[in-house]
């Protein structure tokens, strides 16, 4: 069935293609074909590869959908884990599904969910950001591939998901912060920065020639209104949090964060708690090695975003290890 070549003319593209009813699923003939085609018979999904009739991609949806792997399988990014089958509504970020979802954005969120855990908490005197940086190769130098970046003196961004996409967001955030200060003479407020980053991420969900960012970011900053924590997801939504987590272990991390009394925690205690959470949610079986990256912005660091000083980092790691062993011993 896949090899049937159906003649496609410009006119045919403008009418619902009922002759192909056998091969398309029932709903797909309602596809707005006009918007999906380039008017010359080639479908959007056929970027660069003129598949006659554009039949194959749609077919792929229908047939492979039945081979969908377990929805909750982690680390199987290579297989088409289409738990909720887009069935042709997931080909472009400019397409809504009949039940009002934009599948491309949801798939982008899956990329975030498959990455190492990222945790951010707002303590009473500042913010602590922590990343479970999964080490893919023993050859990698410690401290390379930073996942937490400074965006201005007073704020930092921790990235979960595709690292290269994250770097683009960080770069944009840096330039927004710099241009705000250039124009207004004052450092950008964290809320304003979060808004701008969210707008930028959202921008890439509006055009068919761009793909959404495959990363979520946690933005922590300390300005005139005190310490603030924002999380921006691939869809472009940004909310203010007192505790946020992204990545593989986010559910477990969120549960742990909820147990903490954040309004009474200082950042010094906070870094130990974050280390414990990350060590706790790390799955020893699935991912072997990881590096803990911790940063903070607090009164102690002079309200500047910086890596947690080495001695405190070692203390936090030691405490986290001890807590883990205690748990294992029980």
């Amino acid at each position, binding site marked *: 069935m896949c090899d049937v070549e159906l003649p496609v003319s410009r006119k045919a593209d403008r009418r619902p293609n009922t002759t192909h009813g056998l091969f398309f699923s029932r709903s797909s003939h309602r596809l707005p074909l006009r918007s999906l085609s380039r008017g010359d018979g080639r479908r959007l999904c056929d970027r660069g590869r003129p598949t006659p009739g554009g039949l194959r991609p749609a077919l792929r949806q229908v047939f492979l959908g039945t081979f969908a792997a377990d929805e909750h399988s982690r680390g199987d990014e290579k297989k088409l884990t289409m738990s909720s089958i887009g069935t042709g509504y997931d080909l472009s970020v400019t397409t809504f599904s009949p039940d009002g979802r934009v599948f491309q954005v949801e798939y982008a969120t899956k990329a975030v969910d498959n990455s190492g855990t990222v945790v951010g908490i707002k303590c009473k005197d500042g913010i602590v950001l922590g990343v479970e940086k999964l080490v893919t190769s023993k050859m990698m130098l410690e401290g390379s591939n930073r996942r937490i*970046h400074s965006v201005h003196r007073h704020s930092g961004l921790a990235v979960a998901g595709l690292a290269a996409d994250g770097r683009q967001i960080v770069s944009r955030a840096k330039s927004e912060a710099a241009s705000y200060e250039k124009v207004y003479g004052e450092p950008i407020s964290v809320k304003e920065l979060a808004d701008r980053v969210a707008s930028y991420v959202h921008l890439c969900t509006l055009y068919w020639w761009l793909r959404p960012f495959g990363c979520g970011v946690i933005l922590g900053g300390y300005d005139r209104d005190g310490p603030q924590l924002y999380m921006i997801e691939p869809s472009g939504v940004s909310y203010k949090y007192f505790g946020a987590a992204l990545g593989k272990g986010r559910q477990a991390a969120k549960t742990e964060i909820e147990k903490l009394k954040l309004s009474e925690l200082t950042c010094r205690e906070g870094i130990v708690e974050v280390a414990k959470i990350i060590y706790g949610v790390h799955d020893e079986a699935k991912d072997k090695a990881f590096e803990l990256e911790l940063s903070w912005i607090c009164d102690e660091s002079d309200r500047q975003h910086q890596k947690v000083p080495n001695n405190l980092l070692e203390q936090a790691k030691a405490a986290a290890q001890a807590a883990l062993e205690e748990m294992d011993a029980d």
Partner: protein
Amino acid sequence: MGSHAEGGSQAAGGGQTQRTQYPYVTGTSVIALKYKDGVIMACDTGASYGSTLRYKSVERIKAVGKHSLIGASGEFSDFQEILRYLDELTLSDHMWDDGNSLGPKEIHSYLTRVMYNRRNKFDPLWNSLVLGGVKKGPKGDEKYLGMVNMIGTHFEENHIATGFGNHLAIPILRAEWHEDMTFEEAVKLVEKCLLVLLYRDRSSINKFQIAKITTEGSTIYPPYSLKTYWGFSHFENPAQGAVGSW
């Protein structure tokens, strides 16, 4: 410096008009010299509006990053713009967070590029900048002192003076500077030059700031005044013997 501006008329090509630049609010001399622990820099805190001594509490020496000090004479608004460029530079450097930071030699080189390129566009930043600092190098702690002016001329020396200091302070520095002066000796020498400038430069005021930079960091001391002596007999009755019409 201080000479009348010319040039900056219609550009040859491109149709872009460039402005003739005259400095409006200007600072006078800056003096700097290397001493045992680092670099010492001093200037007065005045900025003139033409011949009026308009602003009397202006800081013309600022710290740049961890390793350098910059002092400027000339148009003060251009100095503020240069400080903004340097702030952007040091911020992006700081955000890399890789243990590296810009040293005085690098900043001097950057400023030279900026000044020279602006001059070539007939849109100069009307300043003489003094850049001093200490940074660890392959041979240990290396002191650095250099200058760059509005046309992009730049050099490195053991002692620097800008503006009127070129004529009044440099001869003193050449005679009395020596390697490895202590901080007290360096301050004495600097104050000697500042006093001469105070007496002889009409745009200087009696309020000075001294700054130093060492491996520990930079310190800009609060402003203070020098004692002056006006008890010369010729000053007591200046009009005596003057030929007048009434």
